[in-house]
């Protein structure tokens, strides 16, 4: 964690300011261990896909409608799958780590996520309906947690992944506490 744990008063953005961006980056990074988490998730999917391709290759040899060069070398199928899928598995975690950031200030939760595509979500605390703190298998192993913030609309709901467990716990608590005080039933 490069940032002090927990929601703090607004702190200056730490990311290098890119002049063309209309929005400043949220103040806090997620936990560095999130890189490991994304890598584990990516590699799991990778193994499943390549394993599936390997299974498929057992049949390829008997499919006569395929070109000869392929039926003679069925191992090309899992190899090609691996070559196509490997680069994203490797570049996705660090890219995500650079993009995923969050902040709670002036009663608005501001979170950024994505890697190739990006998403910015702004949720005012007064409109929050539920705050969930969730931990998957891998997250538990790594001491991470996810905070899910729900409002009456999917487009006003945010999921902040890869937070340090302590940070997530405090954020969830702060949010649900504040949400009760600021609760606004206009919608």
């Amino acid at each position, binding site marked *: 964690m490069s940032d002090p744990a927990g929601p703090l008063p*607004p702190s200056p953005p730490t990311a290098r*300011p890119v*002049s*063309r*961006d*209309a*929005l*400043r980056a*949220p103040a806090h990074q997620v936990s560095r261990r999130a890189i490991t988490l994304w890598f584990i998730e990516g590699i799991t999917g990778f193994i499943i896909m390549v394993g599936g391709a390997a299974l498929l290759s057992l049949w390829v040899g008997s499919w006569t409608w395929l070109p000869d060069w392929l039926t003679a070398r069925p191992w090309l199928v899992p190899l090609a799958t691996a070559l196509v899928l490997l680069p994203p598995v490797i570049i996705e975690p660090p890219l995500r780590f650079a993009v995923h950031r969050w*902040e709670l*200030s*002036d009663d*608005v939760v*501001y979170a950024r996520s*994505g890697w*190739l*595509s*990006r*998403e*910015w*979500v*702004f*949720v*005012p605390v*007064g*409109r929050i309906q539920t705050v969930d703190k969730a931990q998957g298998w891998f997250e538990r192993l790594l001491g991470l947690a996810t905070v899910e913030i729900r*409002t*009456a*609309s*999917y*487009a*006003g*709901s*945010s999921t902040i992944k890869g937070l340090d467990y302590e940070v997530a716990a405090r954020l969830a608590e702060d949010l649900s506490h504040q949400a009760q005080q600021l609760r*606004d039933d*206009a*919608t």
Partner: protein
Amino acid sequence: MAVRLSPKVLLIDPVRMLPSLLLPLGGVLVAGGFSPRSFVFAAMGVAGSIVFAVIRWATFTYTIVGDRLELTRAFVSRSVRTIPLERIRGVDVSTPPLHRLLGLAVLKLDTGAGGDKQEGELNGVTVEEAERLRAVLLARRVIPAVASSESSANATDTSTGTTSAAPGHGKEHYYIRVPRSWLRYGPLSGAYLLTPFALVAGAIGLLFQWGDEFGISGKDAWAVGEWLWDRPQYLIVAVAVLVLAMPFVGGVMYAIFNWDFTLKSRDGYLVAERGLINRRAVSLERRRIRGYELAESPPERAAKLVRVWAVVTGLGDSQTRGQLLPVTPKSAALAIAAEAIGPFGPSSATTPPSQASTPGQIGHVHPSDQFGQVHPSEHEAPSGQVPSGQVPSGQVPSGQVDSAGQASSAGMPLRPHPPQARRRRLFRAIFPWLVVVAVAGVLGWGVVVVIALVLALLGIPLGLDRYRSLGHAYDGARLSVRSGSLRRTQAIVERRAIVGWTFKQTWFQRSSRLLTVIAGVGAGKGGYSALDTGERQGVEFAAEVTPEWLNQFIARP
């Protein structure tokens, strides 16, 4: 006092059950070789179902106890469904044909729970009882500030059948009784146009399902199909007949569903009534209406027509229930929507949205800040734009008002999106077909190549029109976003309904410096997007609507 449904439903129930009984009964008769005994069994079946209906009727009661409605079923096991009256958000009264014959109605309670099972239904009360129940169930929810929007300055008499009765508590006020002559616009909406095909498909499906009963086997049907395939001229004639029937049948269906459409207000509710055979009245609680949505197909746009839906929180099946106006001339529709829900345009910044929220609910913005907080926007609009005098307070980049701009957007011109957005719309409308052309070309499928080429060419006007549709605006009380071509929709949503914002940017949008801004709204579709705004334009749009949320996150150069 517990009340039963009207005993007259007992006349309806057996009729309703008839189709499901027909087959088993027929089966019993056929299996018994039409012997006297089989008739006895069949009669027992009929009697059994009638007894079942009677018991079910006798054991179902409803009662209003204090502040809740209790629906009690004591047939096999006793179950009580309790619906707190304050949870009832709308009442939907409809009269299917048989019910109408007997003076009955079906009452459906909208509790905002979502899902049919959660909602209460009283199937078969007399029409008077339905009216009484509606009055009782809804009276609890009337709040003092209801009539405010009716008395707003924009109550225009549209000279289209609107009766401008003085609004007041307990009084009905008609916004419009749609004249019968407007039913002729129906086919332009594109709704029900596929009915002839649906009917034929349904008939074929039935044939396959029940054909065996009538001695028609799948083989026979297949033979007919092959026979037709060998004589394509008949197929072509059949298709031509169906196509020619489209506007006619579609028009008839439209008329049946939208017969004598009326929109009125009553005790804090908007009530939309329509239908020839099954007359249905939907009551929408005003407090929960957050705005409205306009939809137009290209023919409707050419004829200056529009359809209107209400954006309501927690309304299930909002596509049917939320409809406020059928195909209606645009000027009338806008006037009615402005009167019934609220105007969109510079004037509405001074008139608060209906039933204005309690002070301080939205945040800490003083009304005068609403425009003052907005920073001058980066001008990403195309150069050579025509300045428009209609844009409020000058900070808004003046919209390029295309020839139809003023009339085609509700109330106030929309700000166009940057030219990169046009490139993106065009690319998305054309490129997929070019891929098909390339693939089909490699495989040597000539017909597919030609079809895909034609579609790619059609993509050019489509993409251009999609770009022209894009726009967004904020008038100080409501925001509006518009998109789409074949079904162009413009949503107009109150600012207080917004629960959050989501900005999205794909890899491709990032390289064109575009952004999709989605206003999260706890009503209607849940989110209304301004597609492909300029990066800064989109962020500033959101900051213009809710400066107290967004301003702190905007990067200052």
